[in-house]
């Protein structure tokens, strides 16, 4: 079953009077259940815009997104609730994605207390138990629930954000550059966590990144965006070994490797 089908989707920003920015230009993409997709490109390539469209936080200027084989209509409450109940997001900047005035426990359980999700009946009802489950899943002590986000380091905050995303037992996880704000040495821990969780819970993953090696490590499929247009899609292994476009090849070559001078 297709989870998302993106059909000829475009997104423009800016009013008609001024020069509009074409963030996405007629993009086609089909994401099947259980797949792990990486969306790769430079800043300004439209990768985050695509993710926001999938998350139902924004609507396309043209084209259509189908979610679980039905058109996604943000104006239609039931369509939106279906999306919200099964899709969760992890953001790039763990500084800004956690409300500084809330305790970690309330942050993580917010999705469980949201009206539409509760009424949909698809989310766990025992909030306390679920909180402890996800805290354990991301490797945080239960005492963390009573503390505030600023008491945690960047890597730990990203764990909190992941715990919040997992709390309502989503089928699909969307992640926007989940490790690019972190030190290289912390990156490994968060990538391990994402890998384990996606495998254990059988999630469908869509992860945006500018780093092809990160995508290769976590994903099985990759879509390469350049200036709003899709330049290449395919199994990650194939794209990594034999990139079909020069742009992908350039992206790959640009990633600094330890071996560059040393080997």
């Amino acid at each position, binding site marked *: 079953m297709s989870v998302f089908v993106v059909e000829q989707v475009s997104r423009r920003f800016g009013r008609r009077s001024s020069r509009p920015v074409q963030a996405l230009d007629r993009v086609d993409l089909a994401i099947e259940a259980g797949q792990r997709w990486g969306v790769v490109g430079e800043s300004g390539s439209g990768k985050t815009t695509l993710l926001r469209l999938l998350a139902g936080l924004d609507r396309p200027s043209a084209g259509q997104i189908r979610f679980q084989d039905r058109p996604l209509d943000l104006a239609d409450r039931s369509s939106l*609730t279906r999306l919200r*109940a099964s899709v969760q997001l992890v953001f*790039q*900047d763990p500084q*800004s*994605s956690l409300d*500084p*005035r*809330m305790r970690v426990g309330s942050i993580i359980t*917010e999705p469980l207390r949201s009206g539409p999700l509760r009424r949909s009946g698809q989310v766990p009802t025992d909030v306390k138990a679920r909180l402890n489950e996800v805290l354990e899943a991301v490797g945080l002590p239960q005492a963390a629930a009573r503390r505030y986000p600023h008491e945690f380091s960047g890597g730990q905050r990203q764990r909190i954000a992941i715990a919040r995303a997992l709390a309502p037992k989503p089928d699909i996880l969307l992640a926007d550059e989940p490790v690019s704000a972190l030190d290289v040495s912390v990156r490994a821990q968060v990538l391990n966590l994402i890998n384990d969780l996606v495998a254990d819970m059988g999630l469908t993953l869509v992860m945006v990144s500018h780093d092809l090696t990160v995508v290769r490590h976590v994903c099985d499929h990759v879509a390469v965006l350049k200036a709003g247009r899709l330049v290449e899609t395919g199994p990650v292994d194939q794209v990594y070994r034999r990139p079909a476009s020069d742009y992908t090849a350039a992206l790959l070559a640009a990633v600094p490797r330890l071996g560059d001078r040393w080997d």
Partner: protein
Amino acid sequence: MRRLSLIMGLALVGLVVAAAAVSLVWTPYDPNLVRPPDRLLGPSWSHWLGTDRMGIDLLSRLMVGSRTTLMVGVIAVCLAIVVGVPLGLVSGIRRGWLSQLLLRVSDIMFALPALLLAILLVAVRGASVATATWAIGIATVPVFVRMAHAATLSVMAQDFIDAARSCGTSSAAIALRHVLPNIAPIVGVQASASFSSAILAEAGLSYLGLAAPATTPTWGRMMRDGQVDLFLTAWPALAPGLAIAVAVLGFNLLGDGLRDQLDPRLREFR
């Protein structure tokens, strides 16, 4: 250094509040008792701040006057918060033509200083403390609309708002659960600053003779009356002026102190 503003602010505000509270049960003399033989006395042990041209004890009258000052400030600022913050909040969350119109109107009102608005109202309805309070309150509303609007916009730009939206949290819940707690400290700081503006406006109106009648003791009015005898003695004019300055300084310092105490991560929002 930062703590200092807060402590001094609290001390000065505390002094004014204490004077008002004590005046309810006790003042050194009757604040309305006219004693012509005692007129225009300088400060002494029996009259700490001296007496005015009617022989009334200045300290007693100042203490009673602080009640008006605080009352006008509290009512005007509360009015402005209760009306202004929700409007600013809603216009920051729902950005339609209605919000735009609201902001435009508030900008126009902003061009009308509190004192001018009060003068207009007084011209129509006659001078009274109530009219002055209403005018100051109404004129302060746009301040809070603007401030709450700007603060709401910066909170709404944070990722945690998208996180909340993406799990179906309604706009109302977002406003109450995320935006309001995050802008509350800024509202508090603004309230303190607006409180001192309100005190200044009320004092100005009273000084111009546009607020309280001569019988009601207010600091501005006392200065107006004291100025007449300026070449005989300066005390009746200076003492209430000092009181106003102390109160305004207190609330200004309190506002600065509160702002410095704000969580540094919250300051990024502004």
